[in-house]
Structures are given as structure tokens and as C-alpha cells.
């Protein structure tokens, strides 16, 4: 069993703003193995995007800073690298695709320019060779007539096509790890499905590792092997995808799954969705104890989880939870408690 390709240990990224310090990422640890997909799921403000950006050092450095933690990629700690060294890693070893392909593609350059530029930045090939490779890539991501379309500007392509181009650019240097931040959120449902299928196929063919960041549980179910659920800057549950959906443990995960309107639910029209009351806590001043306590149905006095932050513990092999009240422990009464 080889070491994981990427290992993040106790990462903390803080934003230093006029109003105070925002603990956007507060002690996140995760790892990805070669050839596997890790899904990071959370709502806005959970810190999932900042985590991804911190891994490759793309956080805006004046307000934000990685205050502690390590990001070990293939033996090297990325947090200790200089900007120059990080630039070498980015694109070549770790690639990233973003949510809105219109703003991440330069609208004034043709596809060809952008692809070729990326290829030649990281590999030393003559222009003609780079162009040939670019057309090959466009074909691989499913763009019809690649030799014609390569001359187009981004605005002539549909959203799905642009995202495919982004993927092509990301793949151009055969990265070991692909980080996809909400890759399908801006796309239509039918296109979304295609793009996800594409990502999955490519990952298998190129034996890449992938981190998919999303708020959509459906996307997680589609592509992730393992899932980390984030809430208020921390990981609250980490398990294989199958285990997470079959037996969610953390109250937040349960509530999140319960709040999803179901496509195939027969009673849904009359039934109510399980709404989670309240709002995520402010990260300027995180609550002292469990961050989900204010909205949790099970937070209670006896164990003081509202005062003492629970640790991330391994409930079952491969299934970690940060809670005093995971589902499986709720099922049986605690020893000593009245029946």
C-alpha cells in the first residue's frame, strides 16, 4: 500500500480582515490516493473552496494566510515552496478547474493559444507538436471537429463545451492530481451529467487522482470514491461514498441528506423536507464547542458538546466522525443513562 499522493495535515487558513480573523479552514486533514476520487462536500462558507485553493497556494495572500499545517504532495510540503516553485507544480503535477469557465478562460485569446501556451509552459515541445497535442486533447474531451474549433474564441462555445476545454487545458500536462472546484454547478443538468462522466473516464484512463469540491450530494454520489463533509471550516465526517450514503453518522450529514428533495420519492409532494433551522456560525467568532451544536437536534447538556469541541474520531475502519452523537451511538442507549 503506497503512500497517498496528497496528504493534508491539520491545515489552517485564516483571513485577516478589518473585522477580525476569519478561520476559514480550521484544522483540515485529508488524503487522496493515486487513481481515486475524493469528494469534498459542504455548503457556502464551509471552507471547501478555500481548502482547495490553499492546497495549490492560490489563496489571495494579503488577507489570507496558511497559518499552520502541511500539504504533502509526493513527498514535498507545498506550503514551504516559493511562488516560483509552486508555479512549476501547478499545471504540471496538480491541475485545477473552476466553476465558471467563462471567467477562467481568457475571452480575448483563442482556444488554441490558451492550450498551446499551457503545454509549452510545462513541456519543451515545438509549437507544431504542441498544436497537434492540443487537438488530440480536444478530441479526447469530446469536442467535435477539434481542428476547426480550436480556432474559436471562448464565447463561441456553449457552457458545457467551455468546461470541456478547461478540462483539456487541465489535462494537457498529464497531472497526477486534478482538483475540480464546483465543475458542474454552472451547467445544465444534461451537460452536467456528460461532464461528470467525462471526468470519471479520464481519471481512470490517466490514472489521476481527483478532488471534487461541490455542494451537490448528487455529484458526490456520481463520482466520488471517498467523501469528506465540511462544515464551518472543519471536516465533520469522512467515509467512503457508499458508507456515507448508506449510514451517515454526523447529524449534519443526516440533516443534509434529509433536506434534499428526492427525485424518486413517492410521498414527496405532501411531505416536508427536513429543514435545518438556523444558519452556519460566523467564522469570525466560532463557537467554543461543536460548531454544529446550535442547529443540532441532539446537542445536549450531559456531554457539553456545546462547550468542548469534539475530535474527529474513527467510528469504524475508514469512517471518521466529529461528533458526540453519531447515528450509530444514538441507536443504543448510553450505559448508565435512564432507559
Amino acid at each position, binding site marked *: 500500500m503506497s503512500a497517498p499522493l496528497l496528504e493534508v495535515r491539520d491545515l489552517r487558513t485564516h483571513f485577516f480582515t478589518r473585522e477580525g480573523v476569519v478561520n476559514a479552514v480550521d484544522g483540515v486533514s485529508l488524503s487522496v490516493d493515486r487513481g481515486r476520487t475524493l469528494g469534498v462536500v459542504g455548503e457556502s462558507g464551509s471552507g471547501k473552496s478555500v481548502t482547495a485553493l490553499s492546497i495549490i497556494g492560490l489563496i489571495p495572500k494579503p488577507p489570507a494566510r496558511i497559518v499552520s499545517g502541511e500539504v504533502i504532495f509526493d513527498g514535498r510540503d507545498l506550503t514551504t515552496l516559493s511562488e516560483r516553485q509552486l508555479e512549476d507544480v501547478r499545471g504540471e503535477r496538480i491541475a485545477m478547474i473552476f466553476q465558471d469557465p467563462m471567467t477562467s478562460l481568457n475571452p480575448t485569446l483563442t482556444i488554441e493559444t490558451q492550450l498551446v501556451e499551457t503545454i509549452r509552459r510545462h513541456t519543451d515541445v515545438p509549437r507544431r507538436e504542441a498544436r497537434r497535442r492540443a487537438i488530440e486533447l480536444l478530441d479526447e474531451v469530446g469536442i467535435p471537429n477539434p481542428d476547426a474549433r480550436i480556432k474559436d474564441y471562448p464565447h463561441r462555445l456553449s457552457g458545457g463545451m467551455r468546461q470541456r476545454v478547461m478540462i483539456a487545458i487541465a489535462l494537457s500536462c498529464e497531472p497526477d492530481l486534478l482538483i475540480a472546484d464546483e465543475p458542474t454547478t454552472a451547467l445544465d443538468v444534461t451537460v452536467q451529467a456528460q461532464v461528470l462522466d467525462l471526468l470519471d473516464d479520464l481519471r481512470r484512463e490517466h490514472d489521476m487522482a481527483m478532488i471534487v469540491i461541490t455542494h451537490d450530494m448528487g455529484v458526490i454520489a456520481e463520482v466520488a470514491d471517498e467523501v469528506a463533509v465540511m462544515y464551518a471550516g472543519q471536516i465533520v465526517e469522512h467515509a467512503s461514498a457508499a458508507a456515507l450514503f448508506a449510514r451517515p453518522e454526523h447529524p449534519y450529514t443526516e440533516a443534509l441528506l434529509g433536506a434534499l428533495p428526492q427525485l424518486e420519492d413517492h410521498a414527496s409532494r405532501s411531505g416536508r423536507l427536513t429543514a435545518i*433551522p438556523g*444558519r452556519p456560525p460566523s467564522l469570525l467568532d466560532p463557537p467554543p464547542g461543536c460548531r454544529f451544536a446550535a442547529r443540532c*437536534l441532539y446537542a445536549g447538556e450531559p456531554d457539553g458538546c456545546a462547550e468542548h469541541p469534539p475530535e474527529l474520531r474513527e467510528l469504524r475502519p475508514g469512517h471518521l466522525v466529529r461528533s458526540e452523537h453519531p447515528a450509530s451511538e444514538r441507536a443504543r442507549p448510553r450505559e448508565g443513562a435512564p432507559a
Partner: protein
Amino acid sequence: MSSTPQEHGVGLAPLRHRKERRYPTPPDGVQTDAGAPIRASSLWRDAWYRYIRNRAAVIAGVAFLALVAYCLIWPIVSPYDPYAVDFSQASDGPSLAHPFGTDQFGRDLFTRTALGGRVSIGIGFAATFVILTIGVTYGAIAGFLGGFVDNGLMRVLDALYGLPYLPFAIIVLAIFGGGNFWTMVVALSIASWFTTARIVRGQIITLKENDYVRAAHAVGARWLRVLGRHLLPNTLGVLVIAVFLELPGVILGEAFLSFIGLGISPPDASWGSMAQDGYRAYRTAPHIIIVPSVAIAYLILCANFIADGLRDALDPRTRET
């Protein structure tokens, strides 16, 4: 319990009162979404903080206020009569008794500059106000109505754009006779409102696309209300910046017109007319022309930095979400 509108004859189907909340009662200590605001600052306060961070803008703001205070207050407390002629002190350079020196008639320049400032700044703001009024009206109508009206108005504006304002100013003054505060205001504003109109039109067109404007229509608001209550207040930021951008041009315009003798004429003071006074004596007593010129430059510099600071402070793109 508040009384239902029905009792006041409002004629609306009353909302039935409920004793308990609709949602499953949350466990103790759980905050419902109907909770407190997440951010307590106001739009203006954010803008203020951003403005303060710009050192040049802050200095310029203070300097500007100091200038205005000086112009307003000094003539009242000054021991010198700005109109009194005293040839024994004529054309003296700056001294302790006369910080700015005296002019050819022995009048204290420190006092006359303040007095002149009232006129110059007064004309400046008045003309700017007129420019804004015309520009906002024109631009708002064009932007709001769109279509043919907008097209027509803009083509007319394009044609007008090419006209330099100076000849127009001179013509107005020639017709109505110069030297009067209000004719100056008219002369300076008559051909200077084009840029403002264009800016306002652009703003209105952008704002029109916002959902809250559609919401106002959906609710049944008449166009006047939409314009006055929703569109124009949201152009306030742009207008405030426009004030400080137009001001220097107008001040300079007044100075120039007075300098060439068409504007404020002696013995009344405006900085331009003072410059005209000093022009003839510039070889022997340069301070007479330097003083008003520096005053004008000072004001223009301040206005520019303030406008710059305001633009950064009010720019919605840099607003934190």
C-alpha cells in the same frame, strides 16, 4: 396583537393570525432562520472606511474643508476691509501683517482671497448643481425610456458633444452682460452637462436590469416612482463623484472668464478677477497673480483627489459580499 388591516377598512383579505409558529418548534437554544442580521454595518460606513484608507483622499478632504472654512469665516473676522484702498501699502509682498501681501490698491490679499474664494467656489458649486440637474434629467429620461427616445436623445447629445463650452459661455455673457453671479453660473453650465448626462444614462440602463426594478413594476409601481424611488437613489454614488469631477472644470472656467474680463469685474473679487488684477503688475509684484492662481490650483487638486477617493470607496465591485 396588532389589529388586522380589515378593521381599518383596508379591504384586504386578512392574514389569519396563528398562535404558534409554523415550523416544528426547535429545541431550546436553536436559532431559527428568522434570526439576527449577519452583518451590522451600513453601506455608507463601509464606503467611509474605504475612503479613510486612502491617505491622499483624506488629506485632500481635510484641505478642502479647511479652504471652505477659511473662505466663509475669515472675511467676517478679518480686521481689514477688502475694498478699502490704501496706497501707502500698495503691492507689498507677504509679511506678518499681510500673509499674502497686498495688491496694487493696498488691499489685504489674505482677506480678498477668502472673499474671492466665496465667489469662485460659490459659482463652482452652483454651476455644478445646474450641470447635474440638467445632466441627470436628460440622462435619466434617455436611459429610462430607451428605444427611440434614447436613440434620439443620444444622437443629439453626440452632436452637442463636439461643441466647446467656452464660446457658448462667452456668447451668454455677451448677451446678458457679465459680472453677475447667476449669469456666470448659466454661462458655465450651459454647455458642460453632456458628460454627466451620458454617465447617468449609462447608470440608469445598468440599474434597470436589476431584479428590484422588475419587482417594482411587478408590484404595480408607476414609472415615476420607479425612477424616483429606485433608480435615482442608486445613482447617488455616481453623482457624488460627478460633483467633484465637474467642479475643477467649472472653477477654471470661471477663473478664465473673469481673467479675460468677461466675468466678475472689480472691485468684486473672484480668483479669476484677482488674477486679472495681478497680471498687469506681475513683473514687479508677482505675488498678486500668484496667490489666486495657487488658490485655484489648490482647489482643483483637492477636488481631484477627493473624486478619486470617492470612486474607490463607492465602487461596488470592491464591496465585500
